[in-house]
């Protein structure tokens, strides 16, 4: 039978936004359950390449975090950031395993639960409970750890949007598209209020990818794209952003003329990348890295450490690993057992591709500077765990593609 038949029967008139725990029409031959008999079969189809790529990138990231944070005192190298990041990676791997345990299709009806939690957290973070750093109210301070709910909200929204869109007939009517956009708009509005333009843009990328693959009519996509461009221009032109935020966004347009601090930062980033040359200056030998000349290097600008110390060889290897990872996600989207799986993978793919392009692009001066982490590489628990959860979702789809 066709496994891409619509899972949703419009005649039943049950609307997803009500989050009704309705029994879905089961078309599968066998029921899958939490620890059911299908589970062993599913493990045989785990995409090891995805895990290996994500693991290799994480390891490279941890190494570069050490390089950029250990300081200049040879008698007392600082390994705080390294051990934290290793801990985050461990937590991320555990989260990934947990996500793969349960069949994503069984989880679909519960998609609203994390979504609601995420929205509540996003609302809380802009309340006095949250902590402001670098002009954005985006963190919860929990002991010495920070939780950035927007990072996790990205993955949660992907799953929520996917589970919503699969309920609509293809091609989608305008009102369903509007419903999907509303699900997106809630977290986006809260994130924009922090304000965190970078993560907002990631949501836009996710929405574009998922709506495209999800079966939205071409003319709707064109209208939405046009509206999005107008909105970006409008935001840049309005008072919504602080001056320095606007500077960060527009500095890449006049890199050689401006003398602002942002230009200096961008130049230092480009110098770090460019001076790496073919083979790099060697691990721990990057002067821009070792001497702390590139700002925010262990987080948003982690790529510059790798590019400086391991050169074009290293940065090409990293991009290669990312490319293989994305290829496997794209492949999983293609071979997914149902539309839900395809859409989840399309969302994760859009998220990763945009974040990689945006993050690396800003370090080399072809994209505006926005505070978007490089997946798996950048220092930060929320980002690392969210990335591994996203991989977990893809694995979940991949290993259950036959049933």
């Amino acid at each position, binding site marked *: *039978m*066709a*496994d*891409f038949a619509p899972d949703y029967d419009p005649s039943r008139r049950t609307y997803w936004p009500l989050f009704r725990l309705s029994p879905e029409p089961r078309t599968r031959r066998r029921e899958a359950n939490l620890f059911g008999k299908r589970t062993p079969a599913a493990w045989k189809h785990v995409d090891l390449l995805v895990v290996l790529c994500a693991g290799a990138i994480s390891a490279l990231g941890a190494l570069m975090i050490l390089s950029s944070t250990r300081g*200049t005192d040879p008698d007392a190298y600082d390994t705080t950031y390294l051990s934290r990041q290793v801990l985050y990676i461990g937590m991320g791997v555990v989260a990934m395993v947990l996500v793969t345990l349960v069949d994503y299709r069984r989880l679909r009806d519960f998609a609203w639960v994390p979504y609601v939690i995420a929205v509540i957290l996003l609302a809380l973070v802009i309340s006095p409970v949250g902590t402001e750093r670098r002009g954005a109210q985006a963190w919860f301070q929990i002991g010495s750890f920070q939780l950035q709910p927007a990072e996790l909200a990205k993955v949660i929204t992907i799953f929520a949007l996917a589970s919503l869109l699969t309920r609509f007939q*293809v*091609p989608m009517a305008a009102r369903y598209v509007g419903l999907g956009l509303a699900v997106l708009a809630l977290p986006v509005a809260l994130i924009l209020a922090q304000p965190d333009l970078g993560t907002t843009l990631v949501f836009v990328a996710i929405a574009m*990818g998922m709506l*495209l*693959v999800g*079966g939205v009519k071409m003319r709707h996509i064109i209208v939405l794209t046009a509206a999005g461009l107008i909105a970006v221009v409008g935001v840049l032109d309005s008072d919504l952003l602080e001056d320095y935020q606007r500077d960060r966004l527009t500095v890449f347009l006049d890199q050689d003329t401006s003398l602002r601090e942002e230009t200096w930062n961008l*130049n*230092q980033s*480009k*110098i*770090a*990348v*460019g*001076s*790496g*040359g*073919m083979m790099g200056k060697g691990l721990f030998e990057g*002067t*821009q890295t070792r*001497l*702390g*000349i590139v700002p925010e290097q262990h987080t948003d600008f982690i790529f510059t450490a790798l*590019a*400086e110390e391991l*050169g*074009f060889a290293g*940065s*090409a290897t990293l*991009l290669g690993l*990312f*490319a293989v990872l*994305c290829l496997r996600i*794209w492949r999983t*989207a*293609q*071979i997914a057992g149902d*539309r839900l799986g*395809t859409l989840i993978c*399309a969302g994760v*793919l*859009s998220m990763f*591709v945009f974040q*990689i*392009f945006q993050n*690396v*692009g800003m370090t*080399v*001066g*072809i994209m505006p500077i926005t505070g978007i982490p490089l997946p798996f590489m950048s220092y930060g628990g929320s980002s690392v765990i969210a990335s591994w959860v996203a991989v977990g979702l893809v694995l979940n789809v991949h290993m259950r593609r*036959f049933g």
Partner: protein
Amino acid sequence: MSQTKRTEPSRLRLSVLGIVAVALFASLFARLYDLQIVGSPEFQLQAEANRVRTVHIEAPRGRILDRNGTVLVDNRVAVVVAINRSEFEDLSRGERGQLLERLAVELTRAGRPMSATEIRERLQDERYSRYAPVPIAQDVPESLKIYLDEHAEEFPSVTAERTAVREYPYGQLAAHILGYVGQINEEELTYVQAVHGDDAPKPYTRNDHIGKAGVERTYEQYLRGTPGERRIEVDAEGNPVRVIDERLPQPGDDLVLSIDIDIQAEAELRLRQGMEEARRRGAASDGTPFDPNAGAVVVEDPRNGQVLALASYPTYDPRQFVDGIDQQEWAYLNDPANHYPLNAIAIQGQYAPGSTFKLFTGYAGAMAGVRGIDDIYNDGGSYTIPGCTGLKCTRFNAGGNAYGPVDLRRAITVSSDAYFYSLGAEFWIQRQRFGGDEAMQRWLTPWGLGSETGIALTGEASGRVPTPQWRRDYCEAVQCGDPLWRAGDNVNMAIGQGDVLVTPLQLANGYATFANGGTRYVPQIALRVQDHDTGETVVSIEPEVAGRVEIPGELRQALLDGLAGVPRPGGTAAGAFAGFPLDQFPIAGKTGTAQVDGKADTAVFSAFGPIDDPRFQISVVIEEAGFGGTSSAPVARSLFDALAGFRPLPEAPLGGDLVLPSEPLSTAGAYD
């Protein structure tokens, strides 16, 4: 389960997503290739510039020695109190204020009064490098260093380091020759950078010292050491992380002068004594008071142009410049009431030469054929310019004496003005015959008159040999009475009056040229440059001939006879040389007494000896001191006494404090 049954639009759209992803990855690869492979060399340079700061370490300067190897300028270790700017900035605002107050108190207690505000101003001076401590007080007592070292925790960021500064074992002696060093100023920095470019072997930075005057300036390129360089790795805030490498500074080369410090000391002493005695003589016969405030003595070796002594008064103490001269001292040195002690009278003072000029005009008259060597002129005590209708048409001999029939020899010995008045007038009246408007002048300039001698010292004046053309130009520039050159002007010039000006060094060099038979040397002040450690000659400075004066033997003998008679009985310097053994050490010279409007006469004397093989040419000029034979000749005689060995030449006193002797110079006077 077959995937081929998937609806086509979804599959197509997934492909679109894939293509977008591929395009984005491809553009990243392209950009990385562009930055890391194509643009890499440029970025590597920028990364290196980010990382490395170069600190310049100034090298000690070479020493300055006299011709016998006596050290005239040395280096001495001095304690410099400095503040490390980056450490200072790490302190809190309150700590900084307290620190500066405490430091100001300690400096003041150590005899270097300074206020906290002054220290703060120094710290804020942009001229100091960020990576080297900012000097606050130089040359502080060793005891302050010990105190600061012992109380280091009370003075964070303050250092007391030893550094090399100039030391002058002979104090003020030869100050104008030696000159002084000081911190390079903007103008000098621009100049040296323009001349040497960026790849100079001894580059300058803002904190560096440079020779400001004297041989310190003219031989700067040798005296200056090769600066060292320390390359420091710095972090993003510019804080030093480690020293990458270091090149030690190389001291500069030593300079050996032609000066003999003993002769120099004696010349300065006798000049001062001569001035003192002239002052004590009170006033001239017409009542004009003697007020000798400035004077110069030049001792030159006529055989090669080497300057043995170059004394100028007033003078200054180069030690004032060692720790940076203060405003008060600088104001004193530049106050007209103190007669500009920084100016070296010997090369910068310009005076009418008076009768000492007659050597040159006598030569001119004979060479131009105006008056033969043996032609007799009847000196009736005065001369009336033919055809003259205005004032001062009749000129009288100084002192009003009539010398009767005189030839060239006798005219010089007795200093017959009438002889030279008439000579000058004839030069002008018959100028068509003798070579035009500048008939006389063209025989004067070969002696180096009217142009710089070229001595390697700063600020030399050129003197002046006036011409009708000069008079026209001068009257155009400055409103003056009469733009026309007249016979009276030639009459004036013939006896070294009027508009003619010479520097004491020019006068000495002209006489030295005559003494050696006509070779005009560039007066030489330095003999060689030698290695600081080994003493090996690095650069040998050879005598340089500036020109030759053609002196026919007969004429030279006549002029020499005339000059030789001057110190002998009947000559104008007979009194000064009374008792001098001229038979053992024959001397030829000429006195001069130059009139200055409203002031007492300038006393001039120029002489050389021994006549057969002249080794010493001495010229003495003293302002407002009356007769040359009375005030200046005794100074020269006293020096000849010592140089000829008739009395011992005393050693120059260490510290440079000259004590005027109680016995007077020979003071018997005579008219010239």
